């Protein structure tokens, strides 16, 4: 469903992604792991179009989306749960949720109800402005906001950051559920334990390159993770 081939991305003069190739098949959860500053977020940003690659191909459902505007990419069915939450502080919780919602894809009340059942606290804070939420609540909002757009592929950049263990378990279940109903997910996560549990396949990044990739069931993976993430 999504395929990156030899992607090179720069910030000004610095060459950050140096030929990233990875694939997210339909209906699967792919984990992208790596230490801080290795280029995970940049990979995500290259896909969504914030930092368009200078070289390489990004193919989504058979279409090369390099050079597309972020909003066009999003309209193709890619949603982003960004690192650092990036909810809209001056909008209320409800506005945050409804802003990307599209009529043709569902019923607003139903969709909202769905998100609220997943994160009941958001219902309680419905009219609060985004900036007054607690960190964890903002993270829930960021996930809910992405789900509201009915995407086919969700890019999740450390979606579990700042969440309490109970909520993490809920989200774990949610991701499994999403997967089984056909969603594809590219997951960047530092909670290695959980990432390995959810994902079907793992890519490990090191200094802008894919250093290793393999099936989560493989034995070798433990060692590779030890090697690149030092645990």
């Amino acid at each position: 469903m999504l395929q990156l081939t030899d992607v090179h991305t720069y910030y000004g003069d610095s060459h950050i992604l140096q030929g990233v190739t990875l694939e997210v098949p339909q209906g699967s959860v792919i984990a992208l792991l790596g230490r801080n500053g290795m280029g995970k977020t940049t990979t995500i940003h290259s896909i969504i179009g914030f930092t368009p690659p200078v070289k390489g191909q990004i193919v989504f459902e058979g279409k090369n989306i390099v050079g597309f505007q972020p909003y066009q990419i999003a309209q193709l069915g890619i949603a982003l749960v960004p690192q650092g939450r990036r909810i809209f502080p001056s909008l209320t919780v409800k506005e945050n949720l409804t802003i990307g919602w599209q009529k043709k894809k569902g019923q607003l009340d139903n969709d909202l109800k769905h998100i609220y059942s997943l994160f009941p606290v958001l219902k309680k804070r419905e009219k609060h402005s985004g900036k007054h939420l607690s960190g964890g609540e903002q993270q829930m909002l960021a996930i809910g906001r992405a789900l509201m757009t009915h995407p086919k592929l969700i890019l999740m950049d450390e979606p579990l950051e700042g969440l309490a263990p109970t909520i993490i378990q809920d989200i774990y279940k949610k991701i499994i559920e999403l997967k089984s109903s056909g969603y594809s997910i590219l997951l960047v996560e530092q909670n290695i334990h959980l990432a390995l549990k959810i994902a079907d396949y793992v890519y490990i990044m090191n200094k802008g390159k894919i250093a290793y990739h393999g099936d989560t069931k493989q034995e070798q993976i433990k060692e590779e993770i030890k090697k690149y993430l030092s645990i």
Partner: protein
Amino acid sequence: MDSAQIIIQALNGLSYGLLLFLLATGLSLIFGLMGVINLAHGSFYMLGAYVGLAIINLTGNFVLALLGAALILAFVGILVERFFIQRLYKRELDQVLLTFGFAYIFMDVAKWIWGGTPRSLPKPPFLNSSLNILGEAFPVYRIAMIIIGLFVALALWLFLERTRVGAVIRAGVDDQEMVKAMGINIKIFFTGIFALGAFLAAFGGVIGGPIMGAYLGLDFNILVLALAVVVVGGLGTLKGAFWGSILIGFIETFGKVFFINFAIVTIYIAMALILIFKPAGLLGKEESY
């Protein structure tokens, strides 16, 4: 002052306030929602008045002038936003310089086309009479201004509150990238709101034309008034712009009655007092962490 006088002056304050609302609300939208310091806002107002006058002279039709001028200036607004402002979001100092540059250019273009002579827009004939209120005459046109001001306020409120537009714009200012990632072509919204701001300014220019006239320098006089309104009411809320306008309208009017000698500074004294006690405007929220 007898009661008739008080009523007349209150009507004066109200009509002036709603005129201020017309001319300030566009600035409030652009400033409050998009965070753009548009020093050319007064120029849109002034050009609106001039263009409106030109259309009246051509067609003799006030309503046509009103809509024509507003649409023409909205188009100018689209050009300005699309080719210039769009690169400058969140760069306030550059916005100051750019829009000031435009203010200069617009002023000179107006001088070039219409000369420097001050002008006044004729009132539409059907509004060119006076009403008798408790023995005092009060111009019908000012009553019409009150009605139009209220109507525009209502229409804007419906537009911004009942549609997603206001929220999208605010989100766009918070984090443009993220809005795009939500599948929204935010640029169109920005352009649209800027055009709407220009539309409202020009609309105000024509409505205010029979009272404020059209002259070189009107642009900056209006700008200061509009800024005062927006800031007193608090940035970014229609409600703020509305009550800010009415308040300033009343302060100006009653300042002219009770403090004739200080009329040139009443508005500033009021602004200073309000901001000393409410550093983020009357209806603005103080930034709480």
